[in-house]
């Protein structure tokens, strides 16, 4: 069922400049051509009865309740499948129509339980509503003979049930799975009266191909598919529109609440990023917010070998402030720093970097984007002038050839993946560049035209080869380039890529991609009407990450694929607010809006507004902070909602650095890996407990609204204020809107932002200022942000990390649909039903020579460390490449990753680690130590004295 306050128009909106005027029940109506009669009637508030129609799905015409009469036409056409026509006169009510509708409704009721009063959907069931409208409570048929009312309920999915007895076989769930989600997991099995909804080959939902996105639940008009939470908690009493706290798609949701408790998260059909769709994480995995593992009392301790002591907020904050000042007095101003969170709001992130710059008095602030998309920032800023994706998600619906590179949207960005798949099913061409055979390569009704299964670490060589083909075959858009780019830089680049050593034939040996395939992909991209590139961390997390981003920008400029809808360079950002966290000035060298701290004009503006002198030299980057900690010059860290001890590479290096510090302050929902090395723990608030904004991968700023009270009493931004005040730098905001006003005041691309405007428009894509008062869906229209686009020569410098006799395999990492990043949230939900551990994917050939079988425990060793994981033998990976995820701290995937990093931004080279694998029968030494350490830390958590409630 759709969210309680939504009014369904029956059939999808039609965009047509032509309009048609008709008469419905005597009222003239003008609607776009191609609109259904049902939708036209809805526009004048005539609700034609319906059950199989809903405005997110194509009209189906099966329930036959929406029949109408049209003057001069014979019969009773279905209003959902009949289009408007000029001058027709439609009657939506007549005695005959009522009789027909009652007849159909009687048939429905003849095979449907009539115990509405005790039904969880009571009051929010379309069948019940229609029956009431038609004044029917039972049918004349009785219940003799076979029916479906004793069919068992499928409760296998952790989040929803399927009760066939309640099903009216409207196919909405099947169509939602096909049209909206694109998984094609559901079908109608059997014919006629035997028709029934079935998952895969009549399997339980959990065992089927279902990815639990909830589109079917959303589409179901009855209680047949219902959230277990609705069955358990009952109907919600109100809804709050907010933005998902998981990935960078930034789906809009209506959080439906009862007695201060979230009953369900209903995807918002008016949401600009998701249009009413969602995934298993955002839709269902919100239980972590009320998980018993939440730490809701502040705690302090003198050392990490002591038990935690529960204290009051005042004591914890003062302790932290005193410690920070002590450390600065002893080790110098630059001996402390802060890490804002890409999961917190823009306002919270802005405050953390303000705290560091204004209260700590240094620029030692860095964000997790350091370890994901910092090369995107660097590469795009230098070439086209702005550190962000160029398009809106909807732009993909106008793309003709789509390159997906180093990204796995169906797992990492599932709601965007559904939109992408919709476009691909319409016929757009797809080029996948990935060492793994990701699902998009071959999935129902979609097959990639080219899959370039590149060897990890050779992206730049491959892209140079693609550029070589485009340049040498004369497929560049010379006029576009001449018009919009720095021509000298273009000529240099052209000459460089045209060199024979960059040809597909010459580079094949290192990339492992057949030259013919490279040529085909290059032609496909360059000759498509609209070529769009979507990429992920498989592009950035390399020692040549920044070069690779420039390769992408070069190619897009050379082929004229920037500056309009359907094209563009689109980084798929990982976390809900990683774009925002970058925008807000979380980097050591940049203020909000990507302005360098060394720029005196900008710095002066901030100094005036904040009333303090600010440093002009960039501060320490995240890896440098850890280096400095090991050197003994960096001693204090404020970490808000981040977990570098799990997420950053070379875990043992990171934990050694944390252990070397004197005051680590962690503000989080849970005692995460980093908190195990902390001295002060400040309870965090989840996205359900705060007000603010998130910025998604398409630069869309959306409101986050408080759904329930913060468990520990404060929203995260309030805690930062407390800390700042305790440090003697006053921060007094009554509401995040005041922080946003400050951001707008100090940041030109945000100048037009206010909460009032966000409430009015729903969401806004920055830049939003006088030039674009309602935001900017497509960037670089007419001209690049930096003026003329600049080409960079992208020499391929191979990583030092390469397969050797000792470490003959290359490890690359990624993630799965049901788990999110370090898993702090999703591991504490029923999502573990799908993924309960990290596994190592290995090609059958590599497995066989090592005597490894599916499910065996294997030891994975690199020069950084060793861990043990269960093996999955699969040809999704190519020979010589192994793959794993990093969602579970116990597996320690980052124990093996190395300290190699991008030459420009220090973004770690997570995607290439030379490893060897052996069959083993017990966890690795690190894993055992980690287990012991964790157990002790959990004991410390229990052992704390309760001095204040």
């Amino acid at each position, binding site marked *: 069922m759709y969210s309680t306050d939504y009014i369904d128009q029956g059939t999808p909106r039609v965009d047509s400049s032509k309009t048609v005027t008709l008469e419905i029940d005597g009222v003239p109506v003008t609607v776009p051509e191609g609109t259904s009669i049902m939708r036209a009637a809805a526009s004048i508030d005539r609700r034609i009865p319906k*059950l199989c129609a809903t405005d997110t799905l194509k*009209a*189906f*015409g*099966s*329930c*036959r*309740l929406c*029949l109408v009469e049209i003057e001069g036409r014979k*019969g*009773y056409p*279905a209003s959902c*499948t009949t289009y408007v026509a000029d001058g027709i006169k439609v009657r939506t009510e007549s005695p005959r129509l009522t009789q*027909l509708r009652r*007849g*159909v409704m009687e*048939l*429905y009721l*003849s*095979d449907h339980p009539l115990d509405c009063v005790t039904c969880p959907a009571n009051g929010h069931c379309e069948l019940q509503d229609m029956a009431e409208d038609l004044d029917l409570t039972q049918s*004349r*048929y009785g219940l*003799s*003979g*076979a029916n479906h009312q004793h069919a068992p309920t499928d409760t296998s999915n952790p989040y929803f049930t399927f009760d066939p007895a309640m099903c*009216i*076989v*409207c*196919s909405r769930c099947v169509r939602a799975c096909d049209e909206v989600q694109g998984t094609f997991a559901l*079908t*109608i099995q*059997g*014919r*006629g*009266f*035997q*028709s029934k909804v079935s998952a895969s080959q009549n399997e339980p939902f959990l065992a089927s191909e279902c990815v639990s996105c909830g589109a079917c639940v959303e589409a179901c008009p009855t209680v047949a598919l219902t959230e277990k939470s609705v069955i358990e908690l009952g109907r919600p009493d109100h809804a709050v529109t907010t933005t998902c706290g998981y990935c960078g798609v930034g789906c809009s949701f209506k959080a439906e609440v009862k007695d201060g408790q979230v009953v369900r998260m209903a995807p918002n059909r008016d949401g600009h990023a998701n249009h009413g769709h969602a995934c298993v994480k955002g839709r269902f995995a919100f239980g972590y917010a009320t998980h018993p593992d939440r730490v809701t009392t502040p705690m302090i301790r003198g050392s990490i070998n002591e038990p935690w002591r529960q204290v009051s907020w005042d004591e914890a904050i003062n302790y932290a402030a005193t410690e920070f000042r002590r450390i600065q007095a002893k080790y110098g101003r630059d001996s402390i720093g802060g890490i804002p969170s890409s999961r917190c709001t823009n306002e919270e992130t802005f405050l953390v970097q303000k705290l560091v710059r204004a209260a700590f008095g240094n620029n030692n602030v860095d964000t997790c984007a350091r370890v994901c998309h910092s090369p995107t920032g660097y590469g795009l800023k230098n070439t086209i002038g702005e550190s962000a994706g160029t398009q809106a998600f909807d732009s993909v619906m106008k793309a003709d050839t789509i390159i997906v590179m180093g990204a796995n949207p169906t797992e990492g960005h599932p709601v965007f993946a559904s939109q992408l798949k919709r476009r691909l099913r319409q016929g757009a061409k797809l080029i996948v560049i990935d060492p793994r055979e990701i699902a998009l390569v071959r999935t129902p009704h979609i097959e990639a035209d080219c899959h370039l299964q590149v060897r990890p670490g050779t992206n730049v060589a491959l892209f140079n080869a693609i550029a070589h083909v485009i340049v040498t075959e004369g497929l560049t858009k010379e006029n576009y380039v001449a018009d919009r780019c720095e021509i000298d830089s273009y000529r240099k680049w052209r000459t460089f890529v045209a060199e024979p050593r960059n040809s597909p034939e010459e580079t094949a040996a290192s990339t492992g991609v057949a030259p013919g395939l490279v040529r085909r992909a290059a032609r496909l991209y360059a000759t498509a009407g609209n070529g769009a590139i979507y990429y992920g961390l498989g592009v950035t997390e390399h020692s040549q990450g920044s070069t690779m981003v420039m390769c992408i920008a070069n190619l897009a400029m050379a082929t004229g694929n920037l500056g309009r809808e359907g094209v563009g360079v689109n980084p798929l950002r990982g976390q809900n607010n990683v774009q925002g966290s970058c925008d807000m000035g979380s980097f050591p060298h940049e203020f909000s809006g990507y302005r360098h701290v060394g720029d005196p004009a900008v710095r002066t503006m901030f100094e005036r507004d904040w009333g303090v002198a600010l440093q002009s030299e960039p501060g320490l980057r995240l890896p440098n902070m850890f280096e400095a900690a090991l050197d003994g010059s960096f001693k204090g860290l404020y970490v808000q909602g981040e977990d570098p001890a799990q997420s950053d590479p070379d875990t043992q290096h990171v934990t050694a650095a944390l252990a070397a510090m004197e005051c680590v302050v962690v503000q989080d929902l849970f005692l995460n890996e980093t908190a195990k090395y902390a001295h002060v723990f400040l309870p965090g608030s989840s996205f359900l407990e705060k007000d603010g904004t998130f910025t998604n991968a398409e630069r869309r700023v959306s409101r986050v609204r408080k759904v329930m009270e913060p468990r520990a009493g404060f929203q995260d931004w309030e805690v930062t204020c407390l800390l700042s005040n305790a440090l003697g730098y006053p921060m007094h905001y009554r509401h995040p809107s005041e922080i946003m006003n400050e951001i707008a005041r100090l940041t030109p691309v945000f100048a037009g932002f206010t909460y009032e405007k966000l409430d009015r428009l729903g969401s806004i894509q920055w830049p939003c200022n006088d030039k674009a008062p309602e935001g900017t869906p497509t960037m670089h229209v007419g001209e690049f942000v930096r003026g003329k686009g600049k080409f960079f020569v992208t020499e391929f410098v191979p990583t030092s990390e390469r397969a050797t006799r000792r470490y003959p395999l290359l490890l690359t990492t990624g993630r799965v649909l049901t788990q999110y990043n370090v898993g702090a949230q999703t591991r504490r939900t029923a999502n573990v039903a799908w993924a309960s551990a990290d596994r190592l994917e290995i090609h059958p050939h590599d497995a066989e020579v090592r005597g490894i079988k599916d499910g065996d425990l294997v030891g994975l060793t690199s020069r950084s460390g060793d861990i043990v994981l269960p093996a999955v033998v699969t040809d999704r990976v190519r020979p010589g490449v192994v793959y794993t995820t990093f969602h579970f701290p116990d597996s320690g995937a980052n124990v093996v990753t190395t300290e190699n990093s991008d030459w420009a931004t220090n973004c770690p080279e997570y995607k290439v680690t030379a490893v060897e694998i052996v069959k083993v029968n017990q966890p690795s030494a690190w894993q055992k130590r980690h287990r012991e350490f964790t157990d002790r830390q959990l004991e410390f958590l229990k052992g704390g004295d309760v001095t204040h409630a």
Partner: protein
Amino acid sequence: MEPLLTKYVREPNSFTLDFYLQHQGYEGLRKALALKPDEVIEMVKVSGLRGRGGAGFPTGMKWQFVDKKSPNPRYIACNADESEPGTFKDHLLMERNPYLLIEGCAIACYAVGARVAYIYIRGEFLHVQHILEQAIADAYARGFLGKNVLGSGFDCDVFVHRGAGAYEAGEETALIESLEGKRAQPRNKPPFPAVVGLYNCPTAVNNVETLCNVPLILFNGAAWFASLGPEKNGGPKLYCVSGHVKRPGVYEASMQVTLRELIETRAGGARDGRRIKAVIPGGSSVPILLPDQLDTQASFDGVQKAGSLLGSAGLVVLDDTTCMVWLAGNLLHFYRHESCGKCTPCREGTDWLYKILRRIECGEGQMRDLDLLSSISANIGGKTLCAFGDAAVTPVLTGLKHFRHEYEAHIKEGRCPLPADWRARATVGAH
């Protein structure tokens, strides 16, 4: 009229290419390729050929509607999903004269500008599929299909696609869905397949017998074809006579023939000692005719004038041993089983019709059940996406119209009034 379509079906080698070539095989295609596509369509229009699948829509017109302006490829889909109860003519044509169909497909492709024809064959016709595939392979080998057919520059491919055994797949849009690999459920019309058909491309869906007539038209001329039958009902027609007659079978005749000639002369009439009680003239889906209507001309227009439809020309003959309640129940057992399940009235309604008919037949019915039958039928007929709904309620509605007294007798007597030993039927089990 001398048989044209079935002239050689009894010859042992009628299905071989050599035999076909000895008997004007592919001459129609040769003539077609010498004409412009539009001229071929014009010829078929003038011939008055009407679709043999059931609706009797003029074939030339259907071809003309195939959208020539579309940038997409065009397709011919041959409906060989012969599933209508009492219909078995296409089966015979494909089994004994497969080249005629292949030639017809090629001409149709040429006419509408398609390069590919799909023959969608009923799931149960596995052996026929093998015959067709052999015939297609031979045609490719001899240059009647493939690239540059007969040196004309015209390319044509023909594929056979076997269904999975669903009656509904014979509905043209459901057939297209099934060809695309989806569930055989009908689409909304409009848009019609001629505009948005297979893979959303312009498509003409033609019955096997229809396409088999096309080479005859090209070879012998449109006027000759039209002259074979009454006005607007030209050409030869295959009739499937089944039920209570002495010699059931496929009979070819001009549409000037009457139902009586077909039943009494060709099929040998009723069994000895029995009299004909009713005839369903066009497969199971059309209204019942009574014995006094047997002199009706067995043409599209003739049967329609008599209040029924020629449909697929499957004449189901019923003699006086037939219980009409049983008949309706038997047919509803079929329709209930074959309803695709998309539209609610049909999915739920056919089940209730069947249940109610069964209880009446068993003597457990009540008078109000007759109202229920009428009201359910009224909710299905004309109210569903495709014509299946109309077909499903026809046995009930015409049965009630002509034989209401039999229904009432069942209810009043609490049993079937016919002598027990007349009940030739086996009780149909519920699926």
